[in-house]
């Protein structure tokens, strides 16, 4: 899925290309992590904050 959305943090316009559900993208203006939560309509939300047990 491709399209444009606004960053919910800083309202910058993000032009997304071929993203999939659940993909993490970074806002080019404010640098925050966003998660693609819907493809139709294309919607992003703030990604979950890093937790203590996250990693490899």
């Amino acid at each position, binding site marked *: 899925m491709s399209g444009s959305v606004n960053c919910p943090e800083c309202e910058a316009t993000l032009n997304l290309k071929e993203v999939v559900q*659940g993909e*993490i993208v970074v806002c080019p203006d404010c640098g925050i992590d966003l*998660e693609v939560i819907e493809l139709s309509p294309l919607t992003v939300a703030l990604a979950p904050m890093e937790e*203590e047990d996250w*990693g*490899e």
Partner: protein
Amino acid sequence: MKIGVLLSRVRVEEKWLFEALDKRSVKHDRIDDREVKFDVAQPEPWLSYDVVLERSISFARGLYATQILNAWGIPTVNTSQVAAVCGDKLTTTLMLQKANVPQPRVKVAFTPESALDAIEELGYPVVLKPIVGSWGRLLSKINDREAAEAVLEHKETLGSYQHSIFYIQEYITKPGRDIRAFVIGDQTVCAIYRTSPHWITNTARGGQGLVCPVTPALNAICIAAARAVGGGVLAIDVLEDPQRGYLINEVNHTMEFHTTVPTTGVDIPGMIVDHTLAVARRKTDRPALTPMAHEVSGNGKVPQLVAT
């Protein structure tokens, strides 16, 4: 053949894994660990999976999900036993020690006072690490007694009881880099140097990747480390000690490879998928009562590597 991919986020690694699955025309489901529910008495909905590839970003979710799946006889990559070993730095250290795999010296204490004694026995500098954690979070290089006293006091007041299990590692004076090697099955498939002017060289903390040749010596210690923790798909962090040579620092069981693939050109996601398919085939080829110990868990035994 049907594969479940348990994940928290779709990072570039997961996109590459899905591409590799599609390329091989393997039927697969994405399983979001934020939505998943298990009824421990009802495994039926899960039995359609020949194997589940665990890619949770959360250690705890991945560990308990694979424990449930393995208890039901569903193979996972990696197994819950491997997750339990690799997700806990102290357990990893114990398994490496048991297998006589070279590693930095480690001391463990349970109070700030005994930890301070242990630090001074080891000698400054030392590295204090949380027993659970990744990406270089909360690592402390302690250069003197004043720093030790301050950090120990801070750790004691952190929320989790695990921060009062003081894991104290000898500081290795490494040559501005460490090595991240990738083991899949019984093969070290590639490695990178992670270089940084900072003593923490994780790429998550700004370390840069460069190709590292997999020499026979590097391969041997990485395979030994992988066997020690139970085998599977693993990323081994190796330190170069000026006197002792290679030392195993950590072993990661849900590795990232977004730096290594473009650096080395090695198709790590394809290899992970091929390994996962091989695990699934072994499950279907073998009688249920003779699973391979390092791929199908649930028997409560310390994992043993079976040659792949």
